[in-house]
């Protein structure tokens, strides 16, 4: 094992580099991904090492990025597209939803589009409007896409490589406020958890808390705090939203009988609603309380001076945990 202490951003970079070394058809494309290395420096140094033909600074047009990536994939390439910020993905929504997701069915299986769309997502960095959103539900609702979200450097390194290897299109969410979190990453390892498996990241007995992306760390902190009060929280990092590893979730909730879902996106019509419905269908007689959801409010993302109130924090998560015990 060659362990290196890497930030999540550097782990992404290392994973992209591995994939590019392994397969000459892998391309990186997006706005400012070349010389600058991306606004979060995730693609730092890749253009220097792999050249401008493989690390492409594109014109400033998101639909163009995804549309041309589809064409490149049709020609046998494996484009990894960077959408600079979550709120900028919408100009590309038509190409993603109408073309990328549906081309395989349109061709009766003749066409595969191995395109990865990397989207730094979520809030908490004091940004202006459109830079802090969580648009995952739009994509989990679109058949034909796979949707994953990493929460830590180890998963960032492996999941990006697994996503690039996938013959299906993958929307890859990166928790932007966790880019600077550090962990030891085995940069030579390939013995990874399967891409679409959830992970129990903290075992517990009394309540199951489900999270993904940036919320996982907050939930682990909440579990730690609750442990001091004698309450044992099991935290599951879903990692993959579509497909969803419902088996791991059900196994846990059947043991604990209580469940809280946490995400930054607005709760109404959010991914937590799908989780709550599926858990209810499968664990109805084992539930001691309804599945509760903690997330962003059903408003546009607020100005950054008040975003700490909007984002689910340790206290709001523990408040929901308390409420599940009040039933």
């Amino acid at each position: 094992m060659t362990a290196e202490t890497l930030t999540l951003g550097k782990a992404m970079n290392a994973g992209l580099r591995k994939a590019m070394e392994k397969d000459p058809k892998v391309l990186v494309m997006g706005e400012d991904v070349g010389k600058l290395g991306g606004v979060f420096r995730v693609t730092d140094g890749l253009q220097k090492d792999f050249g401008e033909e493989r690390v492409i600074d594109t014109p400033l047009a998101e639909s163009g990025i995804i549309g041309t990536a589809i064409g490149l994939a049709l020609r046998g390439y494996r484009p990894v597209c960077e959408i600079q910020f979550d709120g900028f993905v919408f100009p590309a929504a038509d190409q993603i939803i109408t073309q990328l997701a549906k081309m395989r069915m349109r061709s009766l299986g003749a066409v595969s589009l191995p395109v990865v769309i990397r989207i730094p997502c979520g809030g908490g960095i004091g940004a202006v409007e459109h830079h802090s959103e969580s648009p995952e539900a739009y994509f989990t609702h679109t058949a034909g896409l796979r949707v994953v979200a990493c929460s830590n450097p180890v998963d960032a390194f492996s999941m990006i490589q697994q996503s690039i290897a996938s013959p299906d299109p993958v929307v890859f969410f990166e928790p932007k406020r966790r880019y600077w979190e550090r962990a030891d990453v085995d940069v030579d390892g390939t013995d990874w958890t399967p891409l679409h498996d959830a992970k129990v990241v903290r075992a517990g007995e009394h309540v199951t808390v489900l999270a993904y992306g940036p919320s996982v760390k907050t939930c682990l902190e909440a579990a730690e705090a609750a442990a001091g009060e004698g309450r044992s929280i099991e935290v599951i990092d879903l990692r993959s939203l579509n497909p969803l590893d419902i088996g791991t979730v059900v196994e846990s909730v059947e043991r604990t009988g209580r469940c809280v879902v946490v995400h930054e996106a607005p709760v109404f019509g959010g991914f937590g609603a799908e989780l709550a419905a599926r858990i209810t269908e499968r664990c109805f007689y084992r539930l001691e309380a309804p599945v509760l959801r903690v997330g962003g409010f059903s408003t546009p993302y607020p100005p950054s001076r008040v975003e700490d109130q909007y984002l689910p924090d340790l206290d709001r998560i523990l408040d929901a945990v308390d409420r599940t015990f009040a039933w």
Partner: protein
Amino acid sequence: MTIDSVRGAPGTPGVAEPELIQLLTPEGERVEHPDYPLDLSAEEIKALYRDLVIVRKIDLEAVALTRQGELGIWASLLGQEAAQIGSGRALGAHDMVFPTYREHAVAWCRNVEPLKLLGLFRGVNHGGWDPAEHGFHLYTIVIGSQTLHATGYAMGVQRDGVLGTPSAGATIAYFGDGATSQGDVNEAFVFASVFNAPIVFFCQNNQWAISEPLERQSRIPLYKRAQGYGFPGLRVDGNDVFACLAVTRKALENARTGQGPTLVEAYTYRMGAHTTTDDPTRYRLKAEEEAWKLKDPIERVKAYLVRNDLADAGFFEGVEDEAKGLAKELRAACLALPDPRPLSIFEHVYAEPHPLMTEEQEQFAAYLASFEDEGVAS
């Protein structure tokens, strides 16, 4: 107060009509153009005539099938045969086509069985041919989206390092006058331009985007848009199969040899309705259709063949009979197309197994099977 939205539109008095590249007049007279010499044998011209007649016949058969309820809808190419056959016959084996949903004649040139085109319109699939096998991508229904796919594909050809070699292939993107207003088409122009992609943008300006006339899309001739993006644009008589062939050949060759994109505006006319559900009498004058009838793309080739004694009555009858035979076969094959199996809905959504597909397919299979059980019980 009214808003004068047509200022500067083509055809406005006092504004000169742009140069139209033409090699065969509507009367069937051959004219030369210094930039587009074209030397076709009698056999080649007869082959083009055969193509034109067959694709028109197939198209008419599809319209008839729609009227009889056998197709849900059909987008007729009537009037645009020369633009499609001329450009389609300019293509080489390594070239790649990205069509809209109206390029039935280009599909014919790429050996896509006409029956395959009907699947989408009959509702038995959304496409269903292998683009790589034919060098002809799937029909794209959303206006303009395919121009970006074509541009990306061309960027891939560029990265393969084959330009300038015998295995070089150009990419050609088809779209219409309405599509030029789409953001995707403009983004495709930008990407193709700055990366010097080996692509031909082939715009069939058929004057109408459903009910909206050209002046609702542009104040300048469409081919002039290219200048703003930094690559050549030209306007060809879209009803002249010779000119469309010559112009597209040159543009494709420029692409294959690394000289970048070209915008070709094929100036033509949609003689039929937008689709079989449309009613052009609500928005355009019969006189306009009559004027364009005189520019028919097939009649001028026939006139040329007759005038130059290159074909006799037997040839024309033979082509007509062949076309009728193909249309008859197509009709029979269309009626025999099986409906898709219910469980096939779940196939081809993902390349690799997907738990949700498996789960829903199993549940639906069990649900369907429950009726079979009832049938047995009763």
